[in-house]
């Protein structure tokens, strides 16, 4: 009885999470430009539309460029900071860890409005690169968290051994520390990348009128009614996220990354 009840509960939650996506997937293969489910006819042309329609393609390129660069910048901010906090005893420097986590904890509209007033005051409002900085600051939390987890997992005796053998700080970092934290670095980048790809409000508030990312494009299109390309883009996004997180799970320890202790019980 309990087993049955448990399966039923998993089924209900699974359906709740997947039902909207199943319907959207069905709608995305409609042959004609109608919002109908079950789909009438079958066509993958709306997936082609993302790449062949210049507007959708421009939005896709803008989103991918923004996500690639802002995630890289987020890692560049997080790596030296978490290395410093691990290498040195400087309790006051923890304030920067807090500053890195703050934008992600507060409602996103706060970070968005702060950046909007800042760029408007300094006169850079609307420049595409301001969105890169905005996303990097907004998502720096993710590499910060994965990296501090990675550093705390390093056995300090490795580092001591390397230092005893005459390696200086730089060599130790390159030959011992970096290989050990690489999985955490990559997963931090992956989390920031996927979330930046999907982010709406910070991008909208800072560059909404000059640069159209995919989420902005979908919302703008939604105001004027329905186009099936929205559905195909949605499925493309879900699939991208699922593939990236599966890769993180395959090459890293996902339960541990999400805060569970290294679990050897299977």
């Amino acid at each position: 009885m309990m087993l049955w009840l448990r399966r039923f509960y998993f089924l209900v939650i699974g359906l709740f999470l997947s039902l909207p996506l199943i319907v959207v997937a069905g709608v995305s293969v409609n042959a004609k430009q109608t919002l109908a489910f079950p789909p009438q006819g079958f066509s993958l042309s709306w997936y082609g539309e993302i790449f062949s329609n210049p507007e959708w393609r421009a939005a896709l390129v803008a989103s991918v460029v923004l996500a690639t660069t802002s995630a890289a910048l987020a890692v560049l901010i997080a790596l030296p900071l978490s290395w410093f906090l691990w290498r040195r005893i400087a309790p006051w420097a923890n304030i920067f860890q807090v500053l890195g986590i703050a934008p992600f904890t507060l409602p996103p509209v706060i970070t968005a409005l702060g950046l909007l007033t800042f760029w408007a005051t300094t006169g850079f409002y609307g420049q595409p690169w301001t969105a890169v900085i905005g996303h990097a600051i907004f998502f720096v939390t993710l590499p910060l968290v994965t990296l501090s987890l990675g550093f705390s997992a390093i056995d300090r005796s490795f580092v001591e051994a390397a230092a005893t053998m005459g390696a200086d700080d730089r060599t130790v970092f390159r030959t011992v520390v970096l290989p050990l934290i690489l999985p955490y670095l990559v997963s931090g980048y992956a989390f920031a990348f996927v979330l930046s790809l999907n982010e709406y409000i910070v991008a909208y508030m800072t560059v909404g009128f000059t640069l159209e990312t995919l989420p902005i494009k979908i919302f703008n299109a939604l105001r004027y009614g329905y186009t099936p390309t929205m559905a195909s883009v949605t499925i493309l996004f879900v699939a991208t996220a699922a593939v990236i997180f599966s890769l993180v799970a395959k090459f890293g320890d996902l339960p541990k990354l999400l805060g569970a202790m290294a679990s050897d019980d299977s």
Partner: protein
Amino acid sequence: MKREPPQTVADYGPLFFPAGMLLLFFVVPFGTMIAVSFFQRQEGGFYTPAFVLSNYERFLSAFFGGVLGFSLMLAITVAICCVVLALPFTYLLSRLTRRLQVFWLVALLSVLSLSEVIIGFAWSTLLSRTAGLSNLLVKIGLLDQPVALFPSFGAVLTGMVYQALPYTILVLYPAIVRLDPTLMEAARTLGSSPIRAFFNVLVPALRNTIMATLIMVFIFALGSYLLPQILGRPQHWTLSVLITDQAIYQSNMPFAAAMAVFLVLVTLGLVALTLLIGRKGEKA
């Protein structure tokens, strides 16, 4: 190489870039926003430096009170729904094999990372007249003809629970995985049914975690911005929507900034409360 305090300026080297970036692009913008909240609005979309409280005085209007009350009520409802759904789920999840856990975690992360735009669009499709659930209800004879189930309060609430549920599960997950499994075993050995053990042993043991999670989901839901617009009517708009509306469409940055400062204060108060609960939990 022992861990030691930095001695020379060069030792501080790695800190320069991250600290500079965070100060310049988070602390300064935050300060700018606070400053603008006291500025005088000029007709035509600009503002002049001043120190006026009129932006804050507007909070006293009945309209603002209504929006604030609705935002808080909505966020509390979302938080309660999510925790009630997530608690048994996360417990059952933590008892699965590692392979199945990873499968669910990947699925949850994928849904969690979805843009609000996409969640809004997906639910508006599912609740629509032509492609939605109501067609199914017609087929099994519960409904005479398909209807649109949005815009409505129920649609906003469902969309927001959908958005926040994966977050809730992932916040609960570490605490529940680390929970001593012998607690439940003891309860079962002493003859308690699994459901009774869940309510009488697990829930009290996790009391602090549950409180902290409620607050975190509440803050998460306060940030929801597009779902009330896509799935609701104007009377379902939240404080986040109002802030953007004032900043972008009404060009009233000082008022938008004042509302944002207010939202920060509410959030920080709640974060402080979370930390306090966490500390108490550690002592116990």
